[in-house]
């Protein structure tokens, strides 16, 4: 008996709707759903004198109260950016880039050409500042609020890590190209250290993990390499498969233990 939905509302249904009269339930349902999306039919709503008066009264109150300017339109890009890397992390990320740039500068200026590539030596630890900054309570003022939220955990970890990598990888790649070193040797250990900091961070806290790994690398690789002016064996191309394995393993550990990122590290509490 009831026909299929017409494209637009009938006049008498609209009139009954405005008058506040009863309309069959299915008609009212369809009408309200339709009106929300159809400006034409909204325009067809007959404004009766009492309704017009009502609207006019409310308008005077609105225009009196609507002082000042509306909220400024925030760029959608900026808001999206903040969901990837909070402002407190960006600064430390920048340090990582500066460290890379400094390494490039030193390598390029190195007249002898015998010194081991500083870019390769620095690449693994350059992103650690950005990674640690995302998860350190002292650095991130909103740490407790973020950790308590539904989005805490793997999603937030991935987002903030991607933010670090999106900045560091092109920077390191560019550095590698400029100083003419193997890009793979530049980037894979970097990924391994990033994942490794997170993985170790699930056990001892990300800041501590970053410090431990950073110091270990400096002591075990950077200092000997600079002292002997020979690049450490760990950075030889032959070692790449092992670095790759390290990335996978550390990544797996991080994902499996990502629940840790939904709680406060109890060791930091007073």
């Amino acid at each position, binding site marked *: 008996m009831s026909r299929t939905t017409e494209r637009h509302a009938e006049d008498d249904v609209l009139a009954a709707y405005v008058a506040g009269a009863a309309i069959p339930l299915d008609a009212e349902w369809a009408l309200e759903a339709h009106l929300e999306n159809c400006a034409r039919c909204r325009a067809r709503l007959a404004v009766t004198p009492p309704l017009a008066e009502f609207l006019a009264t409310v308008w005077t109150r609105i225009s009196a109260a609507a002082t000042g300017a509306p909220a400024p339109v925030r760029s959608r890009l900026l808001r999206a950016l903040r969901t990837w890397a909070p402002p407190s992390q960006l600064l430390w990320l920048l340090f990582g880039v500066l460290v890379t740039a400094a390494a490039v500068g030193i390598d390029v200026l190195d007249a002898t050409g015998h010194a081991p590539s500083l870019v390769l030596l620095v690449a693994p630890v350059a992103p650690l500042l950005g990674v640690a900054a995302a998860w350190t309570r002292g650095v991130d003022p909103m740490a407790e*609020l973020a950790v308590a939220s539904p989005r805490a955990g793997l999603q937030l970890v991935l987002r903030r890590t991607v933010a670090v990598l999106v900045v560091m990888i092109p920077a390191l790649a560019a550095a590698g190209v400029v100083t003419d070193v193997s890009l793979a040797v530049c980037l894979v250990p970097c990924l391994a250290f990033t994942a490794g900091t997170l993985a170790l961070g699930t056990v001892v806290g990300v800041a501590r993990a970053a410090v431990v790994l950073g110091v270990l690398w400096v002591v075990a690789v950077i200092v000997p390499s600079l002292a002997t002016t020979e690049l450490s064996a760990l950075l030889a191309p032959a070692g790449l498969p092992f670095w790759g394995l390290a990335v996978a393993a550390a990544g797996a550990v991080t994902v499996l233990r990502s629940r840790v990122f939904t709680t406060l590290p109890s060791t930091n509490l007073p």
Partner: protein
Amino acid sequence: MVRKVAATELAPTTYGWHVQADGLQVRAGRRMAVDGLDLRLGLGVHGLLGPNGAGKTTLIRALATVLRPAGGTLTLLGEQLGARPDLRAFRRRLGYLPQDFGFYPRFTVREFVEYMAWLKEMPPRDVPGAVQRTIEQVGLADRADDRMKTLSGGMLRRAGIAQAIVNDPDLLLLDEPTVGLDPTQRLEFRTLLRELGEQSCVLVSTHLVEDVAAACTNVVLVDEGRMVYQGTPAEVAAAGGADDVGDNPIERGYTALLGRHRAVAR
């Protein structure tokens, strides 16, 4: 807006208490800050009172699922938090204001609450309306677009309250929410609390006894990680006598109950 209503949303509420803790133990650093606490909280505004170091913040953090209990059982909104709880769904119904909460100084109040709404996984189209509503509810409407670093302590705390309620939570945990608020603001806050308590379970940790007396339907008194007393403000006041320390009946009751508990504990 026509929307799909999931069957889970309509599932009958199987829990009697919003918060149910039995023998709860929570570690803070090396101390067992909450040590064998039994708690039952339902709808309404519950005031959490206790001396410094009583474990109030630790308890609130455990309820906010930010700290894992070391022992005992904790059931929140009908979900027992066992070994590997699924926290995302539960946390969407949670509101939490930590005692020291931070903010990015360059964020405006609106951006701060919006960022929190995003962290709470609110549906994007609901966010602008909800943010505006809660900013108005805490009385920050005229400062909504000012940077957080320009706000006074009381205003910052109100912004914190706004982010806690933006998702219309079923369980609201507020740790010292009235710090820095002037008396008028505290009055407004109490009205807000009462409104919220009608449909949610609200736990307010405070050292300001008058706040508790005025806004709470139920008082939870803790000391050294254990429950001392749970009852209405009137019952707490009745426990005190003329020779107990305190400026008002509730304070006297508080001192009396605390004293009795400590005497028994020794």
